[in-house]
């Protein structure tokens, strides 16, 4: 409780106050219902706002990488650019495609959005800003995020368009590959942390983030996770299903208006999700930088709200992802599979064993230097 007062900007205060007031006047059922609605509304808002910010940020950062300015005519520094885009895309005609598989064509965006939303809900944005906290959190995230690929596959298949079809087939190849690496990389950290629940995992990193705790092994896992996560989002050098210069627009060639908008949205959200899972698992999530024994320093760090820490770390990873994306040419399908099966997967397998050895022989930093970490 004392901690809470020292952090006036945390939302924990707000939620506990809200909960107690509601419980004071309403029955259990209504309290839950209202709280669920609030959770849903907040998620929805966060989802949309984050996507808009990301779209703006990507366009701006891309521009800076490419020696230009990017959007700067709508609002100050072009800040409202993605709002304009949203209005436009919301009011664009949705074209009905002949000879497509109507049901799947319609359902594919649902998969895309729902999958990213479910993963999004499991992300701990800050203290008490955490909707779903399963005890099998890591496994859940791996499972649910892979649903998004089904959206891509279905979209490509149902459009009855050859570009889309090739795009879908490529996304299949990509899916069977990078799903594994991402899972194994997370598993390496599960070995280290000994839990799959995000909240426990974060608490365990209070003085030593996992990426430092497991040093070599963690670093390797971190890089592999970033690569394969990047690949899973169909972005950057891994945008084969979309492949603008080859397949015109890839799997979403036939999607127009908001249906396309959902793909556009989900692409950015997935990028955010990958970055935030990496933050949570490797970089201590929403925890501030803390050093054992430095009470004053820790106190100051605590003053910065937890969600600021979380978004800060995530932003760094997103920047990294953009940097990679705008530096490299696209991989070819066999290069993509080679990278996974000849490099990432074998390294990953060795890495897990290495991590187990580190953990069992007490070579992790927390075991080696318990006084400092």
């Amino acid at each position, binding site marked *: 409780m004392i901690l809470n007062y020292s952090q006036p900007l945390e939302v924990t205060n707000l939620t506990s106050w809200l909960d107690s007031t509601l419980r004071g006047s309403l029955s259990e059922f209504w309290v839950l219902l209202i709280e669920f609605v609030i*959770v849903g509304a907040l998620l929805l808002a966060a989802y949309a706002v984050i996507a808009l910010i990301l779209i703006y940020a990507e366009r701006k950062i891309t521009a800076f990488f490419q020696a230009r300015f990017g959007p700067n005519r709508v609002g100050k520094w072009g800040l409202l650019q993605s709002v304009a885009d949203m209005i436009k895309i*919301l*009011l664009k*005609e949705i074209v009905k495609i002949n000879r497509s598989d109507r049901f799947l064509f319609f359902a594919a965006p649902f998969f895309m959005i729902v999958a990213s939303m479910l993963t999004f809900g499991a992300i701990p944005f800050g203290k008490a800003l955490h909707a779903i906290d399963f005890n099998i959190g890591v496994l859940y995230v791996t499972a649910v995020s892979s649903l998004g690929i089904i959206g891509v596959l279905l979209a490509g298949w149902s459009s009855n368009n050859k570009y889309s079809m090739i795009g879908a087939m490529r996304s*299949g190849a990509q899916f069977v590959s990078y799903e594994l690496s991402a899972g194994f990389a997370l598993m390496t950290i599960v070995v280290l942390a*000994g839990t799959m629940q995000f909240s426990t995992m974060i608490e365990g990193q209070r003085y030593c983030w996992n990426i430092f705790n497991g040093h070599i092994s963690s670093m390797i896992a971190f890089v592999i996770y970033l690569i394969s996560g990047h690949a899973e989002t169909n972005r950057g050098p891994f945008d084969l299903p979309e492949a603008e210069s080859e397949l015109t627009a890839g799997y979403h060639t036939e999607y127009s208006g908001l249906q396309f908008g959902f793909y556009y949205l989900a692409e950015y959200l997935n990028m955010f999700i990958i970055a935030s899972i990496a933050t949570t698992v490797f970089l201590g999530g929403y925890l501030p930088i803390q050093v054992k024994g430095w009470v004053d320093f820790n106190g100051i760090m605590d003053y910065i709200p937890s969600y600021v820490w979380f978004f800060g770390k995530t932003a760094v990873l997103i920047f990294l992802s953009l940097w990679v994306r705008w530096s490299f040419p696209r991989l070819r399908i066999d290069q993509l599979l080679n990278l996974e099966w000849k490099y990432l997967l074998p390294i990953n397998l060795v890495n897990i064993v290495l991590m187990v050895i580190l953990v069992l022989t007490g070579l992790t930093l927390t075991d080696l230097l318990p006084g400092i970490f």
Partner: protein
Amino acid sequence: MSSLSLFLTVFLTGIILVVAGLGIAILLAPQSFNLQKGEPYECGIPTHGTSWMQFKAGYYLYAILYLMFDVEAIFLFPWATIVRSLGVQGLYSIMFFIVILGLGLAYAWKKGVLKWS
């Protein structure tokens, strides 16, 4: 608040987002009709046949390998959570498992399965 009901909340939120968005779009967006609009886009040329033809996916062997490893991953996750408490015993028992799979991958590699054809 149980996890399951929260899960459902999030799930419904996703559905609502899509449904509401599409609803607004369908209600407000202008529409036009012409004969060519619904045809597949293929660089402006009428497409040849249907695209649902037999399609050679060159990566089916990868898919089989993927199945193998994905099943392994399911076994490994529970093990990974309690590896500390299992101790060296746990490492030995699962090493056997990993090594066999690793050998499988090495064999496939050697056989040239990991070469796109």
